[in-house]
């Protein structure tokens, strides 16, 4: 396809400045992203898997220009978000929306559902009052709620229903890209399935492309065609989801897959890397935990290299497959 990918993230670096513990000690620094690049093609949802501290939520916010990176660029359909004038960026937001983790925190308790769902429209000033409530009603029904729910307040709904309202809000401007940061991890298992089915329906019928971010491999595997695994601010492996989880190339992906609880077999714990706990090395960030690490891993940091003949890349000197 000749035209630009839906979303392109190039070499993102972000380091957070921690507040000073006292007026004399300098600001602490916490690196969140250490050079992250990937792109998403319209119609092919992508997933990002990573544990706490991997930088996945920072990536989500920067991808939607809710946070500024130290360096690197984000392009939505070829247009670089951080170079756009303010009002153009605002207009572009209609094409990219976000779903959040906490159903109790992502809806303003003081507003009725109609105002919550219509908020993205208000920002664009596009729709008149009548058209606005029509689009709200359509959006609510698209997520399995009733148009009459528009006049209620968030506290009148269960966790699962609130998450549907958040999804309805994200859909109202018919965005091309929806970034979902841990959309189901706050829901009970029985309610999770409803949200996941809804997201896969939207993907197929409404042509929405998701950037799904989660710590749960199973959730990402259910929705996304390609997945990137993040560890301490870097992508360590990226590729088609089935292949990635079926035969992991990077030891960290292997550790993640083994550690994810499943019904058919008990979890397998990666052999502990003896004696290197907490060791900071100039080499691969995972070296301190990696059971397969060799001297080269400790010294030289590997880049994302194409694995022979497959649409897979891993940042490891000695890939497992």
């Amino acid at each position, binding site marked *: 396809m000749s035209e630009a990918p839906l979303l392109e993230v190039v070499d993102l670096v972000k380091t957070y400045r921690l507040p000073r513990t006292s007026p004399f000690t300098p600001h602490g620094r916490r690196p969140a992203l250490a050079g992250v690049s990937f792109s998403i093609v319209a119609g092919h949802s992508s997933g990002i898997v990573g544990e706490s501290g991997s930088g996945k939520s920072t990536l989500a916010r920067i991808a939607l220009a809710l946070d500024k990176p130290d360096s690197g660029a984000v392009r939505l359909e070829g247009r670089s978000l951080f170079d756009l004038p303010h009002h153009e960026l605002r207009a572009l937001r209609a094409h990219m929306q976000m779903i959040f983790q906490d159903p109790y925190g992502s809806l303003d308790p003081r507003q009725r559902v109609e105002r919550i769902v219509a908020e993205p429209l208000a920002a664009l000033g596009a729709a008149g009052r009548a058209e606005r409530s029509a689009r709200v009603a359509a959006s609510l029904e698209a997520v399995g709620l009733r148009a009459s729910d528009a006049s209620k307040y968030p506290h009148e709904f269960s966790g699962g229903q609130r998450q549907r309202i958040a999804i309805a809000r994200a859909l109202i401007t018919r965005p091309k890209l929806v970034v979902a940061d841990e959309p189901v991890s706050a829901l009970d298992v029985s309610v999770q399935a409803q949200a996941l*089915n809804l997201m896969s329906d939207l993907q197929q019928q409404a042509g929405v492309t998701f950037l799904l971010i989660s710590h749960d491999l*199973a959730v990402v595997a259910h929705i996304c065609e390609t997945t990137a695994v993040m560890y301490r601010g870097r992508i360590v492996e990226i590729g088609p989801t089935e292949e990635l989880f079926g035969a992991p190339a990077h030891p960290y992906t292997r550790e993640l897959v083994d550690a994810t609880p499943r019904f058919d077999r*008990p979890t397998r714990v990666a052999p502990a890397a003896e004696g290197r706990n907490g060791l900071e090395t100039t080499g691969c960030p995972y070296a301190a935990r990696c059971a397969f690490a060799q001297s080269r891993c400790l010294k030289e940091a590997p880049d994302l290299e194409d694995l022979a003949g497959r649409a897979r890349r891993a940042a490891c000197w000695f890939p497992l497959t």
Partner: protein
Amino acid sequence: MLLEVSNLAVDLMGTAGAQRIVSGGTFALDEGESLGVVGESGSGKTMTALALMGLTPENARVSGSIRFEGRELTGLREEAMLALRGDRIAMIFQEPMTALNPLHRVGAQVAEPLVLHRGMTREAAFDRAVQLLDHVRLADPERAARAYPFALSGGERQRAMIAMAIGCSPRLVIADEPTTALDVTVQARILALIDGLRAESGMALMLVSHDLAVVAGHCDRVIVMYAGLIMESGPVEVVLREPKNPYTRALLEARPQPGASRGRRLRTIPGSPPIHHEIGAGCPFAGRCDLTIDICRTTPPPEVRFSADRLSRCHRAREMGSLNMRTGA
């Protein structure tokens, strides 16, 4: 039998009358055995665990019988319970970030049960605590013991909690969602550590979790709870292979399995877990169950026993065999 619980019920006395949180809980746990207690929010699983420890809130009324090592615990005087807690029965909690006192050193907190139940001096108990922290494979136990909780990671703090629990080598450890707040890789290590400690000391484990897969990997037997009721119980493999309760089966199929189910529609359970006081006369799951028939809405489901150690609370439990769809991966 180490622990025998029969008709355990817990009611919370609120201004709006009594709310039944746990109703008619009957289960047992033998020496060295591990029992999983699975349930979603509002299932009463945590309240059940707290009832065993006698730590239910002040406005709770606990009824039924809890026999531990042959002694009846309900109605036991507080002093007698104090002697048990931390010595014969210990507990691990969910939030490692807030379960430790931020003002005391980790070693001192791990040592506290030893001082209380083994009459050790603070210094001796602190040294023993360092060994315990090493035993739970905390890196540099000496530093960890002298450190304050805020200096440790979530995983390290949970290891300290485990060290604290096993200090007096209790006969039963109750773990309430011990790894829910942790990363998956850390969770796997903590669960493996608990398995290892159990194998060594022969202590029994009661693992409370919302995740059936976690229980499947680490427990001999399981009880599945919903709205305060035990819907199904039995050996884990049997329950997973042939669930005899529609709720258990729904839980099994609602959970996405990595690598297997992309695109396949998950079986959803409409509605959401009930708030307890909504329980009508009939089965609490009736409104959401796809096998509901009239009787389900009117009369509470009977306890259908398949064997000494296998039961399901459902009007159509016996028919579940034929209706069973292939489950799991």
